[in-house]
């Protein structure tokens, strides 16, 4: 990981207009990604993780979605200011994505070769034969046995884990600078999950690819990520180096998430902890800390105003009233 920032997300706001009102799926998210860094974005379903990352390559379905504000700078150039042609040169080439469900993310009607070759031909200007060679090479790297034969098969002839390997091979086939992995292992069973994560880690390290790993599992980010952003109700509530987050979680939500991970090194005492309540409805959210109804440490001010960002040592920061002057004065 170098210090060169390749992707900057600045105050990103992505809203969806539905009949009931405006869903602020992402409401002011900012983060930086450095070359070769692995960034984990953690949060519950509906916290805005996936929308954030679809916004990064401007793939939000519009309507009903809309980028309501903010910037995404890739090497300093604003993605939202680019023409559709310019963005397409980045998609799949400089920034590629893999998705949660490998069973539905590959086109069932086309051979693996067709789907891989079209990307390589498009972005690398190779002939189809060269592209196919490259695709076979990538499948081999991704641990697909007999790739020369398997490449001419259809997706349904692969298992879930194998399909995710194909997705990874396809996503990395143009040597992207950034790989966005949206819950890449959530649809797979546990033994396969570890293999897929290991594969992603190994390949991205070898190719020097930066990774944004979206997940709801702290276990997954702990082993893979350099930095972690914790999202709640469309905003980042805490961020920091992975070790810092696990050793000294600051936001009560992060604390709750860590407490609710089952531990093998501690004796089981009664039921596993879970954060009480449900994540809030992000339609017309009032200006308060969205976590306060579920927070054990909630104070009066939490109901009145969204907390400011408080910075700690080690580049850690959290949005919580607990660490502010106001709270100490109460």
């Amino acid at each position, binding site marked *: 990981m170098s210090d060169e920032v390749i992707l900057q997300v600045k105050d990103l706001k992505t809203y969806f207009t539905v009949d009931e009102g405006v869903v602020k799926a992402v409401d002011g998210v900012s983060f930086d990604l450095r070359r070769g860094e692995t960034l984990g974005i953690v949060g519950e379903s509906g916290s805005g993780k996936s929308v954030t990352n679809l916004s990064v*390559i401007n*793939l939000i*379905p519009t*309507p009903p979605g809309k980028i309501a504000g903010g910037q995404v700078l890739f090497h300093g150039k604003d993605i939202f200011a680019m023409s*559709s042609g310019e963005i*397409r*040169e*980045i*998609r*799949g*080439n400089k920034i*590629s*994505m893999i*998705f949660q*469900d490998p069973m*539905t*993310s*590959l*086109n*069932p*009607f*086309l*051979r693996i070769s067709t789907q891989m070759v*079209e*990307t390589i031909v*498009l*972005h690398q200007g190779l002939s189809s034969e060269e592209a196919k060679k490259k695709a076979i090479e990538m499948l081999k790297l991704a641990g697909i046995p007999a790739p020369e034969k398997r490449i001419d098969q*259809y997706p*349904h002839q692969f298992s879930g884990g194998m399909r995710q390997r194909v*997705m990874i091979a*396809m996503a990395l086939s143009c040597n992207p600078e950034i790989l966005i992995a949206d819950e890449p292992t959530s649809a797979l069973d546990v033994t396969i999950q570890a293999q897929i994560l290991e594969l992603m880690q190994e390949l991205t390290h070898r190719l020097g690819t930066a990774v944004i790993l979206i997940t709801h599992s702290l276990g997954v980010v702990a082993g893979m990520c350099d930095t972690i952003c914790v999202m709640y109700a469309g905003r980042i509530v805490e961020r920091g180096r992975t070790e810092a987050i696990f050793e000294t979680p600051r936001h009560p939500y992060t604390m709750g998430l860590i407490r609710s991970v089952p531990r093998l090194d501690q004796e089981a005492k009664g039921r596993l902890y879970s954060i009480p309540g449900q994540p809030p409805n992000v339609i017309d959210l009032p200006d308060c800390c969205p976590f306060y109804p579920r927070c054990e440490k909630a104070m009066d001010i939490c109901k009145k105003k969204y907390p400011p960002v408080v910075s700690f040592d080690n580049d850690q920061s959290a949005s919580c009233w607990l660490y502010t002057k106001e709270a100490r004065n109460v």
Partner: protein
Amino acid sequence: MSRYIIRRFLSLIPTIFIIITLSFFLIRFAPGGPFSSEKNVPEQVLQNLMRKYHMDEPLLKQYLEYMGDVLHGDLGPSFRYRDSTVNELIGQSLPNSMLLGTIALVLATLAGIAVGIVSALKQNHWQDYTVMSIAVIGISVPLFVVGPILQLVFAMRLHVLPLSGWITGREGFKALIMPALTLSFPYFAYIARLSRASLLEILRSDYVRTARAKGLAERTVITKHVLKGGLLPVVSYLGPAFSGIITGSIVIEQVFAIPGVGRIFVQSALNRDYTLIMGEVIVYSLILVLMNFVVDIVYGFLDPRIAYN
């Protein structure tokens, strides 16, 4: 693959056999008979008629004899059109209906798919609203309204097309235009709605998102990733649609005075013309079963997930 096709084809034979058997007995159990509408027939004459058509024999014997004839391709004499055999009656009218139906369905399919694509891509824009309104009209307005309106405009006012009748002479094809358009209208509307709905579903699918995330141009995404899966439901609809449309429509045949098979079908049922009804049931079910067979095979070529083992 070829073994599957042969096996699938052989399985059609019992299907057809069951259809013929069921229809044979059902028709005979329906009240009335082919001669019951004749007025003041002396008992003796009726008896002679029954004997002539072997209707005085036990039902089972009649059935076996009929099946024997059918196996030899002989559908028997018509009970009402006494100068003609069923083979002749169907042989004269079915080709007309097939020609008209095929033209209408080709038109409906081409236009329906094109409109479906446009309206899926322009979902909730004026293009979508316009063509889908037309499609609703196509589904809900009956043919006996559409036909006469076309006649009024193109034949009575503009005098560009013949009012009615069948192909005669050099410009005979003109007689086909209005009936084909009228007949195709509801099929067009249905295909347009069907392809729109299924294309919209595919457009929202995960693999289309993947295709976009790969940086493919929207045109490539549509032609390469969306159309194939999106048009499969149209393919499966075409089988029954084809068998339905080529076996005639009594409304079209009445409005445009076309010597088709639809009119004979309805009249034979009203007349209890046993052999003619049976002949039509056999022809219709053969076509239907064959078309479904063809669709199954075509489907297998289009969708790699279907295995033939």
